[in-house]
């Protein structure tokens, strides 16, 4: 679970989840596309709250472990400037059975996109724009007024 500014290696997350009882490994790579809503994308930049992003990725890994106890998971997200075709995020999940690995990996990326404090700015020929993002799940899971009796994992599992 790491935020890094250099290129991501799929092999790194695959190696991190290797295990003698793992029968299937599913990976997801999010790749910078050349277009968005009909506009030509020429470059992209990600900004993160690194510490909170890594903490949130660890929580997502914890949730995956709670739902799929046999799953092993590794997540990396990149920040800074990326070119078209480069990976912004890589996730690997290994499980004894493949259906669980597919479900757990999809859960991880779906949740990451809604909860991990990372922001994407796309550059077009005409200028740069911060992308619209997700806020509903993060607001739902926000801890309540007194900030008592609500540890991070309680908040995320509610």
């Amino acid at each position, binding site marked *: 679970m790491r935020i890094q500014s250099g290129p991501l290696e799929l092999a790194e997350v695959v190696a991190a989840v290797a295990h003698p009882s793992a029968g299937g490994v599913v990976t997801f790579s999010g790749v910078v596309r050349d277009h968005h809503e009909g506009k030509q994308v020429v470059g992209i930049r990600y900004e993160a709250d690194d510490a*909170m992003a890594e903490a949130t990725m660890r929580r997502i890994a914890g949730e995956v472990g709670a739902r799929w106890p046999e799953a092993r998971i590794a997540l990396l997200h990149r920040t800074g400037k990326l070119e078209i075709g480069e990976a912004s995020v890589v996730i690997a999940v290994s499980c004894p059975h493949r259906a669980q690995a597919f479900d757990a990996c999809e859960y991880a990326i779906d949740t*990451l*996109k*809604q*909860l991990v404090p990372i*922001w994407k700015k796309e550059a077009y020929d005409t200028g740069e724009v911060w992308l619209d993002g997700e*806020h509903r799940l*993060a607001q739902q899971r926000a801890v309540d007024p*007194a900030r008592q009796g609500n540890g991070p994992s309680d*908040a995320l599992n509610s």
Partner: protein
Amino acid sequence: MDIQIRLFARYRELVGHDTLTVSLPEGSTAGDAFSKVTALHPELAPLQASTLLAIDSDFVKPLAILHDGDELKLMPPVSGGA
């Protein structure tokens, strides 16, 4: 009490810097702090409904009570992951 505010991404660019400090009465909430920031920077006011508030590594609700020394993070909706 003094509350440190940290701004991210679009919010940082709208305001022009990444931290600011607001003074608030004891017992103030994260929402109170946000209101104080928008009084200073009205360009953030229309974004309130989708703003994410966080302290350390936790998203907090607008009614979360602030404590002296807290750093409140104001974040736009997240858009990582692809």
